[in-house]
């Protein structure tokens, strides 16, 4: 639905606007709520964002220097792992969840499908340490960076002191990720009065507001709460979502509601990537939900959609 704007040319822009050193590296798009991320503890600078960007794309973060963040969060596809139901890490190992698209992270109150991570700054520890993803640890990453030829001067330039620490590594990765703001899709332009819905998109929008908006709330297209959307358990994975974190029975089978932004780039869908097409997603909500004790109250009844309505809804969701 939206095009992610990766601020890849920040340095260039910074030079052009060299008269304003403290230019705004992050601003809240019109209509968006206040970000959850506290920028006071990690004030964005061009040097730190650029350093975070370099680390994001560098396989040095993995044990055998083969997998980078971008391996599963590709900038070509809204920073998701398009076409992979489950992502693969070092030594071709397959993980257990679909890599989510990275965007608008400043508005998330927790990270991961199950909310296991409570702050963006510590998010990168999870894939770095997971044996099926990067199989590394932050202490070893810091050692490798200290020994590299490239990174010590970049850290010095960004932090104005010598030394590389885990805290610095994690915070600059956050800085880059915070710039992945998605707010210029046709939907966003329409909201700003700069574009108009087609007739079909209007119909889809009305269906969306009636049936989807309570969980996939505008303008971020998620409340980022945890819900059980009625997917039957995949017994090859036995993933019970947030229950693994909270150990509370009411959290069994709940997962974080994903944003619908950039939906046409982020297939396959759901926490385990079980649906390749949006049509399958809508069929699920229309007729295939599995009853269970923790099923979201919003989904107690199926969402009635005929085939025309499904097409209209998809037209809106892939704007």
């Amino acid at each position, binding site marked *: 639905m939206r095009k992610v704007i990766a601020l890849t040319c920040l340095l260039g822009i910074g030079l052009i606007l060299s008269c304003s050193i403290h230019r705004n590296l992050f601003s809240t798009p019109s209509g968006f709520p206040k970000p959850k991320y506290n920028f006071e503890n990690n004030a964005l600078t061009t040097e730190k964002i650029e350093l975070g960007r370099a680390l994001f794309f560098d396989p040095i973060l993995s044990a055998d220097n083969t997998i980078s963040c971008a391996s599963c969060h590709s900038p070509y596809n809204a920073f998701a792992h398009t076409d992979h139901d489950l992502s693969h890490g070092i030594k071709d190992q397959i993980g257990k969840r679909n890599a989510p698209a990275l965007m608008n992270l400043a508005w998330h109150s927790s990270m991961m499908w199950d909310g296991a991570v409570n702050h*963006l700054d510590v998010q990168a520890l999870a894939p770095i340490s997971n044996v099926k993803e990067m199989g590394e*640890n932050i202490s070893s990453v810091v050692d490798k960076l200290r020994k590299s030829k490239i990174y010590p001067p970049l850290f010095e330039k960004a932090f104005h002191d010598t030394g590389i*620490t885990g805290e610095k590594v994690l915070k600059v990765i956050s800085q880059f990720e915070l710039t992945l703001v998605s707010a210029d899709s046709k939907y966003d332009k329409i909201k700003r009065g700069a574009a108009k819905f087609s007739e079909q998109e209007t119909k889809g929008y009305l269906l969306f507001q009636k049936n989807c908006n309570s969980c996939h709330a505008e303008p971020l297209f998620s409340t980022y709460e945890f819900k059980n959307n009625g997917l039957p358990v995949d017994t090859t994975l036995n993933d019970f979502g947030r229950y693994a974190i909270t*150990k509370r029975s009411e959290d069994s089978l709940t997962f974080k509601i994903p944003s619908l932004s950039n939906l046409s780039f982020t297939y396959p869908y759901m926490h385990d990537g079980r649906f390749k097409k949006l049509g399958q997603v809508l069929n699920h909500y229309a007729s295939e939900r599995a009853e269970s004790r923790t099923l979201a109250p919003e989904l107690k009844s199926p969402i009635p959609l005929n085939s025309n309505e499904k097409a209209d809804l998809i037209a809106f969701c892939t704007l």
Partner: protein
Amino acid sequence: MKFYVSDLTLLDKGKTVYHFPKKYFLLDFENPSTLNIDLPKKKDFDEVQFHLGIDSTTNVSGALGGDLDPVYGMYWSWQSGYINFKIEGVSNVCATRNHVFQFHLGGYLPPFASMQDVDLMVNDKRTIVLDILSFLNGISLSETNEVMSPNEKAVELSNLIAKNFK
């Protein structure tokens, strides 16, 4: 074995006389220099209070530096939160791989918040002892030998460790 001590305070006759400006200390038994904490000069005290572990606010504050830097292996990666106390060892009674026991005790959210309050009267040597033998004797290693996530057992073991500071 390593663990966090935070909010270290000295008291004399029941009144606070000194609060350490450094809020968190990582005591690492593989790095003995971390086991000595410099005392303020000319302060009489007969009691010490501290938290064993890291408070909940700090646990949700993102990436931190100093003794709290995740490079020290005291921060969980798969789930956010500090490990307050880590001890690993070998015992023949453990039916685990290589007879290893591992306790990574942490957790900041109720009902499994595991940070402990410790309050001790101080001896003349101004030394605090952690009686690990007494701690290990207080558990059945054949049954309990791997605790590595926030849960009931982690809280129980944390409580037992706190009672073994002397």
